[in-house]
């Protein structure tokens, strides 16, 4: 089977400036004093992962180990310092839901705005509008500015918009932690639906249960390197034990 995502020798290096240089004057002074020292920080080093089409792939690891950086590289937000990422198909990133919501606008306006951020056409959003609203169950709040929404409500709208298309690859970053349990179940159901339709899913979560339940394979990332990669239940068991 063809690979949906091929990650080859990917490294990501951040320049962590010890002091933030924000102005030309500071920059010149620091340059001549030779104080422009950057601490290099390898967020990821030499990552190799092939994710097959239709697979549900999990990423686990402690905070700051580079999981989210890897997701951002896959979805094209970051360019890796070295190495390459090949993605076959369309991506729907659920990295931070509601990116690009303008809180002064109403939910109705935001559905169009956020939809266009994700690259949908107006025609497509028009078609799917009712379906999106039905999924959020927020009919009566549709024309309320979103600044008056609770974070759970915002997440509902964000999730509904992002999953309305049938992407080839779905990227999910700990977004299921918000919302009430009914909505979480609903989200999981929607993800399961997408999966059964052959969509590749990449999930980051701190909930080991969720990962074990949903994923086929898992990569355990520790300080920017792959520690282990393999069957979900095996890796998750080892990961859970290591914490004890």
């Amino acid at each position, binding site marked *: 089977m063809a690979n949906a995502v091929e990650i080859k020798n990917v490294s990501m290096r951040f320049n962590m400036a010890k002091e933030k240089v924000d102005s030309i004057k500071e920059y010149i002074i620091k340059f001549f004093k030779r104080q422009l020292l950057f601490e290099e920080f390898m967020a990821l080093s030499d990552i190799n992962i092939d994710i097959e089409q239709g697979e549900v792939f999990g990423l686990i690891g402690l905070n700051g180990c580079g999981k989210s950086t890897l997701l951002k590289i896959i*979805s094209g937000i*970051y360019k890796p310092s070295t190495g390459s990422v090949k993605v076959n198909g369309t991506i729907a*990133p659920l990295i931070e839901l509601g*990116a*690009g919501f303008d809180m002064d606008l109403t939910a109705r306006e935001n559905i169009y705005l956020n939809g266009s951020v994700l*690259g949908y056409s107006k025609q497509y959003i028009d078609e799917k509008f009712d379906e999106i609203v039905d999924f959020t169950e927020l009919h009566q709040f549709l024309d309320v500015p979103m600044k008056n929404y609770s974070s759970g409500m915002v997440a509902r709208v964000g999730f509904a918009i992002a999953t309305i298309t049938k992407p080839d690859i779905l990227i999910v970053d700990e977004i299921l932690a918000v919302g009430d349990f009914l909505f979480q179940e609903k989200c999981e159901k929607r993800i399961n639906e997408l999966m059964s339709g052959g969509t590749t899913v990449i999930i980051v979560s701190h909930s080991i249960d969720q990962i074990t339940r949903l994923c086929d394979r898992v990569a355990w990332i520790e300080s920017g390197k792959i520690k282990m990669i393999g069957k979900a239940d095996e890796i998750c068991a080892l990961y859970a034990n290591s914490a004890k």
Partner: protein
Amino acid sequence: MKYFQTFIKYKYLLSNLIGRDIKVKYRRSILGILWSVLNPLLMMLVLSAVFSALFGMGGRFGGLNVPFNIYYLTGATIYNFISEATSTSMMSVYSASQLIKKVYIPKYIFPLEKCLFSFVNMLFSLIAVFLVMIFSGVDFHLTMFLMPVPILYALIFSIGMSFMLSALTVFFRDIIHLYGVFLTAWMYATPIIYPIGILESRPKLMFLMKFNPMFHYVEYFRSVTIYGAIPNLKDNLICLAFSFGMLIIGVLIFKNRQDKFVLYM
């Protein structure tokens, strides 16, 4: 080809952002978009009052063969367009950092959007130009149909400059403050509030003026709108060279740096 496809894909985002900008700009104002017409008119009244009352120079001076009102307004239309487009674009990439850090969007959308938004504003302020032309009795010439030409030249120039400025602003925020001063200097360096005639006795300044792209766009615009003259091939080539030269520089600078934006936000 690939670039073209992504542009088509995000075309709706572009129009959506322009729509939002218009909505936000005129929120809670009664006259709304009418301000795009009123603003240049009021500015013109102030300047005319200053020049005629304070300096006693009346409606025409410095060899002007058109009333000062319309002379100023035509120049200011082009200048305001370029200055608004570039100075709002400048912050556009940086202000969109929340978005750029979270989803993949072609980043050139942001400066392009600001330029097009200013372009829409400028189209409204053309109404002011027509109104003043009627009231101050300036003849309408057939050359008016050429008006889109200098406007397009100015648009291409603004887009190029906006690409350059918005990319550099991500790395050095100082540019924002510097550019405000630069814009004021640029206004005085261009014959907008003074007639070009007063420079005729100063050959050196006249020579320098040839390197000011704003001068060429402003003069081109005045030629077709109020002088009823068709600029010759040389004028067109100069404008084209400035516009596309700036566009190429801007695109190159933007393209080389755009992958690093996200690390500096």
